[in-house]
C-alpha cells in the first residue's frame, strides 16, 4: 500500500515536469521586421544627411527598401538639438555646415511606429599626412592567380593612436579598362572598393588589388568601430547554422549612423 502511494507521488512529479516542459514553449513572434533602416555618414563641413528605409521582404528584388517619409528627426550635439527637414522623399537633412565638429558626440532621435529610435556617434579628428609613395605606377602582371604579387605602391598616414581607417579606391574614369580578360584577379569587380587597414598607418597595394587600369581617387577615411563592424559583416555566405545579425549602433533600428573624416589623393595605374 505504502509503495503504491509512493509510486503515485512519483508519477505526479513526472507529470508535473512534463507540464512544465511543455509550458516552457516560447512565443517567437518577431516584430523586428518593422524596424527602420538608418543610413547616415556625418562629415564635418558637409550637410548632415540621414536616409530612412523600410526593410525588404526576402523575395524583394529592389535594390533598396521603400523610403520612410513624414518622420520628425532630431540630431543633438549634446547642447543643441536640431530638427532635420525632409529634403527629398526619405532623405532628411540639416544644412548648417558648422554643426558637425570633431570631438563632439551626435545623437539621432526620432519616433517610429511608437518606438524611440536613437543612435549615437563621435566625430573623429581629421587624418594627417596622407601620402602615396608614387603618384602613378605601371601595372605588373602577376605570376598566377593565387600567388602573392609584388607590391606596387604604398600609402601612408599618421596613426599614433591606432585608430580605424578605411581606404576607398574609386576609379574616376568614364570608361573602365579591365586588367585582364574577364574580371581580373581577386573577386572585386566594382570600380569602387574599400579596404580595412586594421588600425595600421600604412597600406601596400599589389598587382591584383585592382580590377581596372586608370585614374583612381584614393580616399582615406578615419572611421569609428561601428563602421568597421558593418563593413566586416558579410551576409552573402550564410546558412542556418551560422547566421548572425549584423551589428548596428541604431537602437530600435538597423543600419548605421556614424561620423567620419576623410582625406583624398590621386593615383594612376598605367598600362
Amino acid at each position: 500500500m505504502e509503495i503504491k502511494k509512493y509510486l503515485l507521488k512519483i508519477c505526479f512529479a513526472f507529470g508535473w515536469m512534463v507540464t512544465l516542459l511543455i509550458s516552457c514553449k516560447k512565443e517567437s513572434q518577431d516584430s523586428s521586421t518593422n524596424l527602420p533602416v538608418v543610413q547616415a555618414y556625418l562629415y564635418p563641413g558637409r550637410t548632415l544627411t540621414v536616409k530612412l528605409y523600410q526593410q525588404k521582404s526576402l523575395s524583394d528584388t529592389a535594390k533598396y527598401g521603400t523610403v520612410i517619409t513624414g518622420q520628425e528627426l532630431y540630431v543633438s550635439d549634446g547642447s543643441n538639438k536640431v530638427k532635420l527637414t525632409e529634403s527629398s522623399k526619405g532623405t532628411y537633412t540639416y544644412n548648417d555646415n558648422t554643426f558637425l565638429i570633431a570631438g563632439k558626440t551626435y545623437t539621432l532621435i526620432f519616433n517610429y511606429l511608437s518606438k524611440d529610435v536613437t543612435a549615437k556617434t563621435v566625430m573623429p579628428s581629421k587624418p594627417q599626412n596622407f601620402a602615396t609613395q608614387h603618384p602613378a605606377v605601371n601595372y605588373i602582371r602577376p605570376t598566377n592567380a593565387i600567388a602573392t604579387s609584388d607590391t606596387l605602391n604604398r600609402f601612408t598616414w599618421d596613426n599614433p593612436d591606432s585608430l580605424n581607417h578605411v581606404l576607398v579606391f574609386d576609379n574616376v574614369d568614364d570608361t573602365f579598362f579591365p586588367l585582364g580578360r574577364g574580371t581580373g584577379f581577386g573577386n572585386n569587380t566594382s570600380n569602387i572598393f574599400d579596404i580595412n587597414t586594421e588600425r595600421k598607418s600604412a597600406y601596400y597595394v599589389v598587382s591584383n588589388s585592382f580590377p581596372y587600369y586608370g585614374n583612381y581617387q584614393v580616399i582615406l577615411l578615419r572611421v569609428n568601430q561601428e563602421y568597421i563592424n558593418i563593413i566586416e559583416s558579410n551576409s552573402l555566405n550564410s546558412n542556418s547554422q551560422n547566421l548572425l545579425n549584423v551589428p548596428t549602433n541604431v537602437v530600435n533600428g538597423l543600419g548605421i549612423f556614424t561620423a567620419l573624416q576623410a582625406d583624398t589623393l590621386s593615383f594612376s595605374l598605367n598600362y
Partner: protein
Amino acid sequence: MKKLLLFLLVLNFGQRAFCQQQIQKILKGNTLNKFVARPLDDLLDTLSANYNLRIVFERDSVHRFDVVEHFFNEPLNKVLDKVCNQFDLHYWVDAGGIIYVLQNVDDMARLKGLARILKPLERPKRDTVKADTTDEQDIEALYDNKNKPITKAKGEPKQVINIPRKAPGVHLSVTISGRVIDQSTGTPLPSATVHIQNNTLSVTANSDGNFTIFQVPSDTATLDVSYSGYQSEHFKMDADKLSKPLVLGLYPALTTLNEVTILGQKNGVMNTDVKKVGVLQLSPANLDKLPSLGEKDIMRAFQLMPGVGATNESSSGAYVRGGTPDQNLVVFDGFTIYQVDHLYGFFSAFNSNAIKDVQLYKGGFSSQYGGRLSSVTEINGKEGNKNETIYGFDLSLLSLNAFIETPINDKSSLVLAIRRSYQGPFYDKIFKQFNTSTASGFGGGGSGRPGGGGFGEQTTPASHFYDADIRYTYHLNPESILSWSFYSGSDKTDNSRQLQLPSFLGSGSAPSITDYTTYGNLGSSLKWFRQWNKEIHSNTYLTYSSYFNDRNRGTTGTTTDSNGDATSFSNGTVESNNLKDIGFKSEWEWQLSNQIKLLYGGFGSRQHINYDYVQNDTTHLISQHNTALSGGGYTELEIDPNNRLHIQPGFRSTWYQPTGKVYLEPRLSASYVINDNYTLKAATGQFYQYMNEVTREDVLNGNRNFWVLSNGSSIPVGMSRHFMGGISYENDLFLLDVEGYYKVLSGLTQFTIAQTGVGPGGGSQSVDENFYTGSGRTEGIEILLQKKLGRYTGWVSYTLADAENKFAVYGNQYYPADQDIRHEFKAINMYHSNRWNFSAVFIFSTGHPYTAPLSTYSITDAGGNRSTYFNVSAKNAERLPDYHRLDLSATYDLLKINGNKIGSIGLSLFNVYNHVNTWYREYFIQNNAVVITDVNYLGFTPNITFSLRWK
C-alpha cells in the same frame, strides 16, 4: 523426500558445466563402423543407449527419415553431421550435455520442454561401453507418462553416484572469488551474474569477468551463473575447487534462442541496467539484427535508445541528454578517442568485430570517469579466442571488414580486425551528400556558383576511410594479465587535380592543385590486470592517443610571361590540428565485504595540441601550441546495506596545470529495489571538462573541427551538474523504464574565426579568432517500454526534452541549443522466425532549431558600395521540419549442421519512404533577393551485407 529430491537435483546441476565437454569428447572419441538402414529415430535411440548420450528429438517428425548409409569408423559427430545434413536438420549440444536434433532453430524451446518431460534412459555404465561397439539394442519408447514429470529426478540416481564426493567437511561463511569466461573461446564475460543458489547473495562480474562473494554460507554452495547470449550454468563448489583459481565457463546459447530463466537477465541487442540510472549496455554480436547502413555501428545503435539523439546523420557522435558529442568521453581499452566517426560523421570509427561490449553512461556517472560534461562511452575490445582460431569477413556495399582471433600459445591470444571502405556507388552517394554540402559555398561576390570561387573544376575526389584494431593478451600467471591494444583509424580525401589555365594568364604548363585532407585517431594502451588476492584487484594502464586533422592545399606549375620567360611557382595553405595525449592510470577495486566495495585510483596525463594554419610556408595565420598537464585521483564506495538499497558515493579531484587549480567533483548515485518488479534510482554529480572541440566555419572549403585546451581565460574550464532520477518496472516479458534529468552547464565554448584582408586587396591576410563563452541547461524525461522475449522483441521510447544555451554574443536570453529536440519517438521492432530476423525502425523527432533571415536591407557604405544584409530572427528561434524515417532490414542466418552460426546475409533499407529530412538551410543573395536552399540528409538508400566466419 522432497528435500532429498532437491538435493539430488542440486548435485546434478553441479556437474552440468562439465557435461558438454564430456559429450563433445564422446562424440569425437567414439566411432561407428556399421551399415545402417533404419529410420533416423531408431538410429538416434541406438546411439543414445550405446554411448550414454541424451538425445532429444521429436519422434514423429524424425521417424519419416530413413538412414541408409555405411559408416566406416566415423566419429559420432561426423555421423550426426552426415545424417543431419542429409535431412536438412541441425543438432545442438547444450551446456547440460543434452543433444537436440531439430529442424528449425525455433523448435529449440519446444524440444527443451520435451526434454523436461522425457524419461532419461537407464543407461549402461560408461565404462561398460566399448568404444567401437556395434550393439544394437531396441529401445523402449522414450515418452514417459506426461502427467508425472517429477519422475525425472527419480530416474537419475546413477548420475548422482558418479559425482565425486572428495570434498572435505563443510565450511561456513567462505569467500568465493573467480572469473566467468566463455568456455568456447576462453574470453572473460563482463557483467555476468553470479548468484548463490537458495540465497539472496548475488554479484555482477566486472569488466574482466572477475567477481568476489563474501560470507557464502557454505563452501559446498552452488553458483548460478548467467550471461546474455549464453546458457545459464550451475556450478557446485567444494573446498577442493575453492583452493584453486576458480574459472566458470559458460557456453553460448543457440543463436536465435530466446529464453531467459533469470529475471533481470538481458538477451536483447541493447539493454538498460534497471539498477542504475542512465546506463545502456550493448553487445555488438547482436547488432546485425538491426537495420544497418553499410556497417554494424555501435554508436548508431545507441542512438535508438531514449536520451541519445537519433537525427544527426552528420555525426556518429553521441548527443546525450542535450549534450554535444565533444561532451561525451569515448574510452577504448583505456585510451581516449577524439575522432569518433568516419565519412563526415556517417559511420562511427569503431569496428564492431573487435569489440566485446560497450557501455554508455548517460549522466551522473561514476567518479572513475571524468573530463567530460555529459556522458561516457566505454568500449572494451575483444580479448581473442584462447582455444581456436576464428576468422571471418563482412562485405557490404561500403566496405570490407576482415578479422582474425587466434591463440598464439597457451598463454596469449591475438585479435586483428581491419576495415576499409571502397569507393563504390554507395560510398560515393554518402560522400557526395555530406562533402558537397559541407564544402560547398557560394563563391565570393555572390556569384552563386557552388564549389568555391576560382576555376570551378569539379572532379570526384578520391576518398576512403580505414581502421585497424590489434589486441594482444598475455597471461603472465593466473593472477596477472597483460594486454596491448592498438587502434588506428583515418579518413583520407585527395581532391588533387589538374587545373585548366585561363588563357589570360599566358601560356605555360597547366598548374596542378594538390588538396589532401586527412583526419583520424591513433591510440594505444598497455593494460596490466592483477588479482592481488581474493578481495583486491587492479587495472593499470599506460595510454597514448593522437588525433589529427590536416589539410594541405597547394598549387604548383610554371607560367610563361609575354617575354617568353618561364617562372615556376608553388604556394598553398596547410592547416593542421593535432592532439597528443599521453597518460597513465591505475584503477583499484577492493571488496571489503559483501556490503562494501571500495574503488579508488589515480591518473595523470599530458596533452599537447598544435594548431597551425600556414600560408605559403611563411605566413602563420594561426599558430597555437598548448600543453596541459593534469593529474588526480578518485575514490568511490559501493554500499549495499541490504538487498534493496545500493548507494554509491564518490569523489574525484583533478589538478589542471594551465589554470593551476584543483577541481573537485563529488558524485552520488543510488538505487532502491521496492519489490521484484519496481526499482527506484537516482544520481547526481559535478563534472568538469578541460578541452573542447570547436568548429572553424569555412563556407568555401568546409567546416573544420579541432580540439583546443582550456586556458582559464578565453577558453574556460567547463562545468556541469547533473540531477537525475528514475523508476523502472520489470517482469519476465516487459521492461518499463522512466527517467528524468536536469543539467546545468557553464563555461561552454563556441569559436568563430574571421579571415580578414582576403578581399580585393589580396595582400596581407590575417585571422581573427573569437572564443565565446556561455552557459546552458538541459532537462527531459525519457520513457522506454521494452519487450524482452519472444519472437517479437523491441522497444518504443519517447523523450521529452529541452536544451538551452546562453551566449552573450546572441543576447542575454536562453535560446534553444543547436542540438535541442523537443519530442523524440523511436520504435524498434524485431521479429524472429527460424533463421530470419526482420526489423523495422521508425524514428520521429521535432526539427532542429535554426536561425532564419526575416528580411533584408541594403545600405550604401561611405565609399559608395551597396551591401545587402539580413535581419536575422532571434538565435535558433525557428524549427526545421520534423524529422522522421523508417528503416527496414531482413537478415538470414547461415548455420552449420551443429547449430553454430557461421554468417548472415542481410538487406537493409534506409529511409524507406524517402522522406526529405532537412539538415540546414543556406541563404545567399542573388539579384537583391534571398535564395533559400535546403541541404538535406540522405534519402532512400538500400544496402546489402554479407558476413562469414570460420573456425
